């Protein structure tokens, strides 16, 4: 029998107010101060993924507006909007109406702001100034260095620290208990290992592993294995064995069916190189090539061609290896 609505645990256990936020004590204290004064400046939240940036922004909105929070908050995502032009249009439409309740401004949360080009950021800066009277911006980014100086200087900058294993473990245990999940010590350790300080990934891993029944190291790694397709390693091995055309087929499969971007693939290749059976000095050479191709993908226009060129190098090193012994 289904009682409560089922949802993803990352949302179910998202903090409802600032006190529930995991760690980030300094950030939370400062933000609370703004709430108390019913006034907030433009803000920039910078830090690694899964450390609570969006959660703090949403909790702040809850505390400021109470039940009206949805009507006073506009969430935008720089990587989903089609260019600065649409961002500007949506901000303009949104800023036209007055806020609901006793707070004299509305909030615009712009996620992944560091994905915007510097030209787009310049345009964003002008937009921010234009609507300063009625709107406050919360910009969210992984790297504050990728946000242009004029924007940084107009924002209160908050740096989010990677979460400690103790904090993540505490949260995971709480959720597991609440959901009646059977988790053992090995399962918890495995989750901490794969999460690398990212609470969102930790919770998603927990929920997916729970679908397998018991959460132990085996089920966690099974989930992670599926989440990081083995195909990437297989693709590299095919290329090393000189089966270039088959390797390229795998590549297409990853891009078209798994929907991985070229950058996703090249990063994962980087991680996986160390687990290949290759002499150590060849791994170093390949790392250099992977980096070069990653760079070229940023400059170029066709990721599949760049990755094919990379696979050709794998084929070359594979052959050298066979020649020498």
């Amino acid at each position, binding site marked *: 029998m*289904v009682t409560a*609505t*089922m*949802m*993803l645990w*990352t*949302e179910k256990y998202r903090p409802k107010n600032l006190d529930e936020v995991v760690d980030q004590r300094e950030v939370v204290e400062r933000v609370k101060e703004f709430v108390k004064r019913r006034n907030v400046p433009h803000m920039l939240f910078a830090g690694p*993924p899964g450390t609570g940036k*969006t959660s703090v922004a*949403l909790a702040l909105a809850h505390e400021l507006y109470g039940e009206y929070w949805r009507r006073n908050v506009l*969430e935008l*995502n*720089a*990587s*989903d909007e089609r260019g600065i032009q649409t961002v500007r249009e949506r901000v303009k439409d949104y800023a036209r109406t007055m806020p609901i309740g006793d707070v004299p401004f509305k909030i615009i949360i712009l*996620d*992944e702001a560091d994905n915007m080009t510097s030209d787009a950021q310049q345009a964003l800066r002008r937009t921010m100034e234009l609507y300063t009277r009625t709107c406050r911006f919360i910009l969210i980014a992984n790297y504050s260095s990728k946000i242009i100086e004029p924007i940084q200087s107009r924002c209160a900058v908050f740096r989010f620290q990677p979460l400690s294993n103790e904090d993540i473990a505490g949260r995971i245990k709480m959720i597991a208990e609440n959901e009646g999940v059977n988790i053992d010590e090995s399962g918890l350790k495995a989750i901490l290992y794969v999460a690398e300080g990212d609470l*969102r*990934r930790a919770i*998603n*891993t927990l*929920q*997916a592993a*729970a*679908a*397998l029944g018991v959460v132990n190291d085996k089920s966690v790694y099974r*989930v992670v294995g*599926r*989440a*990081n397709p083995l195909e990437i390693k297989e693709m590299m091995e095919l290329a090393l064995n*000189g089966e*270039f*055309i088959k390797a*390229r087929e795998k590549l*297409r499969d990853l891009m*078209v*069916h798994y*929907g991985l*971007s070229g950058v*996703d693939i090249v990063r994962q290749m980087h991680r996986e190189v160390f687990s290949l059976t290759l002499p150590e000095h060849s791994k170093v050479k390949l790392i250099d090539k992977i980096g070069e*191709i990653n760079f*070229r993908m940023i*400059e*170029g*226009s*066709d990721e*599949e*061609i*760049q990755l*094919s*060129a990379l696979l*050709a*190098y794998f*084929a*070359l090193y594979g*052959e050298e290896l066979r020649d020498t012994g």
Partner: protein
Amino acid sequence: MNTSSILWVNKYKPKSFEEIIGNYKAISEFRSWLENKLKGKAVKHAALLWGPPGVGKTLTVEVAASTYNLELIQMNASDFRTRYRVERILGRASETYSLLGRGRIILVDEVDGINMAEDRGGLNAIIKLVDLSIHPVVLTANDPWNPNFRELRERCKLIKYSRVNVRSIVSFLRKICLAEGIAADPSALKFIADRSGGDVRSAINDLQSVAFGKRRLTLEDVNWIAFRDRQLDAFEVLRGIFSSSNCRAAKAALSRSTLDYNMLLQWIHENLPLQYTLIEELIGGYEALSRADIYFGRIRSSQDWSLLSYALDLMSAGVAMARRRKFRFVKYNFPERIRLLSQTRTFRSVKNHVLSAIAKKCHVSKRIAGVEYLPFLKVIFELDPETASGIAKWLDLDSASIIFLTGSYDKAERILLRM
């Protein structure tokens, strides 16, 4: 039924001058030259009918032969290569009458097909034929303006043939369809005529290849002609590039193509590993393509199209210079990736729908939804139908999305039954 072996160009070949479409002025010029010649009046020794292919040059001579009751002796420029053949031709040209007592007309087709560098002798033999023949000699050519042909040209009455207009071609095609019992959409015939470029013969061949055995011909039926042309074009470009031994030839091969460069890039990318099987060739070829792609990226970000020539040179000359062995023939493939992308269009739109739903509910971008949520959701949907049905309701997913997430109909059904 063996009617399929009959080419419609032959089946519907005009029998009289009146049936020939287009080039009326050229035909009447030719007829008056021929009539004068037959009467022994002092006119040029030979007629040179020149113009684009498929407009009726050879046909004019064939119809003339039957109209004036002449024996047609037809030969090709390549027949003038060997001395033995030349002597036989000259012999027949200087005999007064044929065995049947008829006069003769001598046709040398495609004189410009003669290879000047190797075949100086062949051209001289043709000139000799024109000088010695007591029968009318007619030559045809697409382009007679090569300086080497000057001597020959001076001996000839030049008659120019032009492309036949689209309307005339359409009406001829309609007649054929009528005779074959095919109901053809005017737009389909217009399409064939348009792309023939005034070449009646190729228009008829195209019509036969798409309409044979059909009762009805629509625009859709003929569209693939264009596709076939593009494919042939790509094959030639690839062969041109991969067989070039110098930069200039490779660049020329690329520039001959009517395909856009992005499509060509895909063709080269697809077939490079088929052509280049040595690892050094593969590396060199892909290095050139990779560099070319960087220029394309720079063009896109700077909109500076003057960079295009570097990209094009790298994908032609750059790829060609990577070859280490003798060129060998390989069968080329259509770019698999383009096929894949069009096949998986629905797949991608369903996926996009799922990502949007996650993005909205979880306050993340679609990109993050794809990397940080989708893989975990897939595990849940595959293994735990109970939880999955709840999440599906929460995300407001339709059945296509659920099938996408489970990867199978059976597993999707287990979830759908609980909703």
